[in-house]
C-alpha cells in the first residue's frame, strides 16, 4: 500500500498530462518566503507574468504556460500547491528537484486511498507513518503531515490549514528547521523528535541542567576577583581601615590586566584581521556584493547585544556568532585599554592636584560659582537644576581644595569692603530671586485671541482639524446649519433641539430623544463589552471588524473553528489576522488567528478556516479583528462542533459615527447624546439665532478637556459651516 501510494504520487506529479490554464498565486510566493525564513530554499511554479517580474524572480524557465520561479541556483525543494497538480508541469523541471513540498489548498484524492485536503492528509493504510506535529487545538486528534521518500525524492505533503493557523505554522516551522539541519532526510520524523532536535540554544541554556552552573560560575569569578580583599578580611581585618589596602587592591586589579595584556593584544590583532574577511563574505552572501551600508547595518545590529536573545530564538546563528565575536573584541579592547585609562587617570589626578591657582582665581572665580549656585537654587526647582548645581559644586570643591592646600583661602583673603560688596550682592540676588518668584506666580496668564478656523476663514468643509497655541481664546463663531456639529466626542449642535446633553455611554438609559455615537473607537468596544445594555443598539447585518456570538454559541465543551473570507479585489500582502477579545472585565491580549499568506489580483475570494479555542468560555465576549485590512474582509463565520454558529456584527464607528438614533417626541426640546470615552457630561444650550461654538470650545479648553489639535465634524457628508457673525 505504501509503495502504491508513493508510486501514485510520483506518477501523478511527473507524468500527468495537463491541458488547462495555469494557476498562479501570491500565496505560493508567501509560502516560499515562509520556508525561506525557516532555512528551506524552495522554487515555485508560477504563471502570473507580473509575479515573474517581481523581486523574487531571477530567471524563468520553460516556455510553456507554467514558469519556474527560482533563485540563482536550483533550490533543494520545489513547492507546489495541490490546485496546480491537475495542470501541466514540465517533467524535466520536476526531475531537477530532490524534494517536493505539496501544500493542499484543494482536496486531492488518489484512488480513494490517499486524500489530501485543506485541513488533513489521510492514507488508508496501516503501513504509512505520518509525521506527527502534536495534537490539534480543539479536538486532541493528531496533527499529521505526510513525508515519504521514493527513488531518492522526498515528498512532504502539508494541508494548507497548517500553514495559515499560527499555532500549527509554528510546528511546521519546527519540522522544516529540523529537516533543513539534517543532511539526509528521514522518513516520518516524529514531532517529538522534531521538537527535541529543534530545541534551541536558549532552551538548553535555560534548562534545569544549567540551573546550578551559573551561581557556581558566578561564585568562582567573584572568588577570583575578590580574593585579595577576602584574604585581607580574614587575615588582617584591621587593614581594611587603611588607605594603603585599597591602593594595593587597585594595583593588583590593574596588574592583572597588565599581565594578560600581551595575549589580549594578539587576540585583538587576530580579530581585526578576521573581521574584513567575515564582513566581506557576509556582504557577498546576503547582499550579493560588497555593500558598505549593509555591513554598517549588520554591525550595528550585531553590536546591539540585546538582539542576542532574538538571534537564538530565530536560529540566526551566523548573526549570533558575529555578535559573540563582537563581544570578545570589545572585551579584548577593554582589557587593552584599562591599563592605559588607569595611566591617564593617574596622570590627570596627579596633574590636577599639582596645579597652582592664580592669585585671583579663588577670589573671583569661587564667588562667581557661588553666586551662580545661589541664583540657580532660588529660581529653579530641584528636579530641573540639580545636575547643573552638582556641576558647579564639584568645580567649587576642586578650587577650594587647591586653595586650602596652598593656604590661599586664609582669613586675609578679602578686605572688609569686599565682604560688604559680597553681602550686598547676596542680598540683591535673594531679593530679586524672591521677587521674580512672587511675580511669576502671580502674573496673570496672557491670553491671545485666535480665529476658530484660522487664517481669517469664515467658511470650512467638515471635518476640520484645529491646531491651537497655548493660552488661546477662540473668537466668536456663530453656527446655525441644518446638520449636527460635533467637537471630538461631544455633540454641540443639533438643528432640531435647543439643548443637547452629552452623557457618558456607561450611564445609558432611554429617553424621548437620544442618539448614541462614537467619535473614535479607542474605548468603544471596551465600553460595549462592559455595559451590555448598549449592545442592542449597535448591531448590524453588514460585515464590520467586530462581532459577538449568539448565546447558544459559547460553550466550553465545544470545538470551535473560525473562517475568514478575504476579498482579493486588489493585491494584498501577507498579514497576520489577530482578534482581541473584550469582556466585561477588560481587554485580553490579541490572539493570532490566521497567517494570511497574501493574494494576487487574480483571486477573487479566498477563505481560510482555522481551529481556535478563543470562544470556549462561557463569559461574554466581544471580538474585534485587530488588523482589519481595508474592506478586504468579506465575512467571518464561526463553527461550533462543525455547525455554523450565529455571528452578529457590531457597528463600526469609523464607518457610521452615529450608531443609533431615537428621535420620537417633538414635544421635548432636549436631545441626549450618549458618547464613548467621555469623562464628564456637558450641557449645551443654543440661542435662537444659533450657537456660538467658540464659547463651548473655550469652556472645554479651560477645563482641559480639549485635545490639540481637535476635530470639528459632522455625520452629514460634505457639511460646510459658516461664521454667522461675518456677513
Amino acid at each position, binding site marked *: 500500500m505504501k509503495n502504491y501510494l508513493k508510486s501514485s504520487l510520483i506518477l501523478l506529479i511527473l507524468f500527468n498530462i495537463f491541458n488547462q490554464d495555469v494557476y498562479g498565486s501570491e500565496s505560493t510566493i508567501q509560502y516560499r518566503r515562509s520556508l525561506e525564513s525557516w532555512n528551506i530554499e524552495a522554487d515555485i511554479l508560477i504563471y502570473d507574468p507580473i509575479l515573474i517580474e517581481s523581486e523574487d524572480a531571477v530567471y524563468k524557465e520553460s516556455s510553456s504556460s507554467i514558469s519556474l520561479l527560482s533563485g540563482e541556483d536550483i533550490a533543494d525543494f520545489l513547492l507546489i500547491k495541490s490546485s496546480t497538480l491537475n495542470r501541466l508541469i514540465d517533467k524535466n523541471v520536476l526531475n531537477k528537484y530532490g524534494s517536493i513540498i505539496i501544500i493542499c489548498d484543494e482536496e486531492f484524492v488518489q484512488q480513494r486511498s490517499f486524500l489530501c485536503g485543506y485541513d488533513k492528509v489521510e492514507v488508508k493504510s496501516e503501513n504509512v507513518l505520518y509525521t506527527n506535529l502534536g495534537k490539534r487545538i480543539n479536538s486532541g486528534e493528531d496533527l499529521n503531515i505526510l513525508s515519504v521518500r521514493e527513488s531518492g525524492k522526498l515528498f512532504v505533503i502539508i494541508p494548507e490549514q497548517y500553514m495559515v493557523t499560527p499555532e500549527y505554522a509554528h510546528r511546521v516551522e519546527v519540522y522544516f528547521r529540523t529537516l533543513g539541519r539534517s543532511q539526509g532526510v528521514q522518513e516520518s520524523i516524529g514531532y517529538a523528535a522534531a521538537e527535541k532536535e529543534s530545541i534551541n540554544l536558549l532552551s538548553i541554556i535555560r534548562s534545569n541542567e544549567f540551573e546550578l552552573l551559573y551561581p557556581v560560575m558566578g561564585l568562582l569569578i567573584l572568588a577570583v576577583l575578590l580574593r585579595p580583599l577576602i584574604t585581607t578580611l580574614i587575615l588582617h581585618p584591621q587593614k581594611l581601615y587603611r588607605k594603603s589596602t585599597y591602593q594595593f587592591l587597585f594595583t593588583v586589579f590593574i596588574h592583572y590586566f597588565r599581565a594578560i595584556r600581551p595575549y589580549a593584544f594578539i587576540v585583538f590583532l587576530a580579530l581585526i584581521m578576521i573581521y574584513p574577511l567575515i564582513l566581506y563574505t557576509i556582504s557577498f552572501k546576503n547582499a550579493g556584493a560588497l555593500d*558598505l*551600508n549593509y555591513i*554598517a547595518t549588520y554591525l*550595528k545590529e550585531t553590536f546591539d547585544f540585546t538582539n542576542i536573545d532574538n538571534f537564538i530564538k530565530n536560529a540566526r546563528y551566523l548573526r549570533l556568532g558575529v555578535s559573540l565575536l563582537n563581544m570578545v573584541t570589545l572585551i579584548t579592547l577593554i582589557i587593552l585599554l584599562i591599563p592605559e585609562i588607569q595611566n*591617564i587617570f593617574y596622570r*590627570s589626578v596627579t*596633574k*590636577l592636584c599639582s*596645579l*597652582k*591657582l*592664580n592669585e585671583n*582665581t579663588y577670589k573671583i*572665580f*569661587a*564667588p562667581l560659582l*557661588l553666586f551662580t*549656585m*545661589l541664583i540657580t*537654587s*532660588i529660581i529653579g*526647582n*530641584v*528636579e530641573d537644576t*540639580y*545636575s547643573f*548645581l*552638582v*556641576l558647579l*559644586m*564639584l*568645580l*567649587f*570643591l*576642586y578650587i*577650594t*581644595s587647591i*586653595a*586650602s*592646600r596652598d593656604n590661599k*583661602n*586664609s*582669613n586675609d583673603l*578679602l578686605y572688609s569692603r569686599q*565682604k560688604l560688596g*559680597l553681602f550686598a550682592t*547676596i542680598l540683591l540676588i*535673594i531679593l530679586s530671586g*524672591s*521677587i521674580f*518668584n*512672587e511675580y511669576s*506666580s502671580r502674573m496673570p496668564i496672557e491670553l491671545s485671541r485666535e480665529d476658530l478656523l484660522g487664517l481669517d476663514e469664515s467658511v470650512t468643509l467638515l471635518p476640520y482639524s484645529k491646531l491651537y497655541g497655548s493660552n488661546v481664546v477662540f473668537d466668536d463663531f456663530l453656527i446655525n446649519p441644518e446638520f449636527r456639529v460635533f467637537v471630538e466626542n461631544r455633540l454641540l449642535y443639533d438643528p432640531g433641539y435647543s439643548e443637547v446633553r452629552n452623557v457618558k455611554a456607561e450611564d445609558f438609559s432611554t429617553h424621548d430623544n437620544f442618539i448614541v455615537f462614537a467619535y473614535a473607537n479607542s474605548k468603544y468596544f471596551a465600553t460595549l463589552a462592559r455595559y451590555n445594555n448598549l449592545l442592542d443598539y449597535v448591531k448590524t447585518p453588514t460585515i464590520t471588524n467586530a462581532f459577538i456570538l449568539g448565546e447558544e454559541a459559547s460553550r466550553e465543551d465545544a470545538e470551535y473553528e473560525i473562517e475568514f473570507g478575504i476579498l482579493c479585489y486588489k493585491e494584498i500582502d501577507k498579514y497576520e489576522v489577530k482578534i482581541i477579545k473584550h469582556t466585561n472585565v477588560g481587554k485580553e491580549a490579541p490572539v493570532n488567528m490566521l497567517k494570511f499568506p497574501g493574494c494576487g489580483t487574480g483571486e477573487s475570494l479566498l477563505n481560510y478556516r482555522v481551529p481556535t479555542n478563543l470562544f470556549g468560555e462561557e463569559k461574554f465576549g466581544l471580538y474585534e479583528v485587530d488588523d482589519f485590512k481595508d474592506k478586504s474582509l468579506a465575512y467571518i463565520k464561526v463553527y461550533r462542533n462543525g455547525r455554523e454558529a450565529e455571528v452578529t456584527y457590531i457597528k463600526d464607528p469609523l464607518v457610521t459615527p452615529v450608531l443609533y438614533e431615537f428621535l420620537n417626541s417633538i414635544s421635548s426640546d432636549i436631545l441626549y447624546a450618549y458618547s464613548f470615552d467621555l469623562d464628564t457630561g456637558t450641557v449645551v444650550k443654543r440661542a435662537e439665532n444659533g450657537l456660538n461654538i467658540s464659547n463651548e470650545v473655550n469652556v472645554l479648553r479651560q477645563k482641559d478637556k480639549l485635545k490639540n489639535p481637535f476635530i470639528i465634524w459632522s455625520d452629514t457628508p460634505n457639511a460646510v459651516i459658516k461664521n454667522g457673525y461675518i456677513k
Partner: protein
Amino acid sequence: MINVIDTSKILITGNVLLLLLIYMYTMEEYVGKLVKREVTKFHLTLVPVAIILIYQLYSLKLAFVLSFIQILFIVWVFVYAITINRLYLYWLAVISVVFTPVLYFFGIQELAIFLATMGFFSLVTGVFKDLFYEKLFKE
C-alpha cells in the same frame, strides 16, 4: 514672600549661603578647636555640599546617582582636557572633522554625527583653554 519658596529651595539656598559664609569668613579655626582636629576651609565646604547632595539623593534617588556619576566623569574629562597640551585637542578636532564627511559619504551617518560632536567638543575645550587657562592657573 516666603510662601513662594518651598522646602527644597530653603534647604539648598540655605546651604549655598552657608558655603558663601564659609568662603568669606575664617571659621575653620573655631571649628578645629571644637572638634580638636585640624580643619581647613575645604573640610568645612564639604559639609553643606554633602547636605545638598544627600538631599538630592533623597528626593531624586536613582536618577541622581546615575546623573552624579555622569557629571563626575564629565567634570574629570573636561578639567583634564584643559590641563593637557592644547595641540592634542586641536589634532583630535582635526581628525574628527576629517573623518566626519568620509563616514557620512559611506552612509554611516550616526557615527559621522558622533565624530562631528567630538570634533566640536575638542575645539570648544581647546579654545576655552586658550582663553582661560592662564587666568585660572599658573605653571
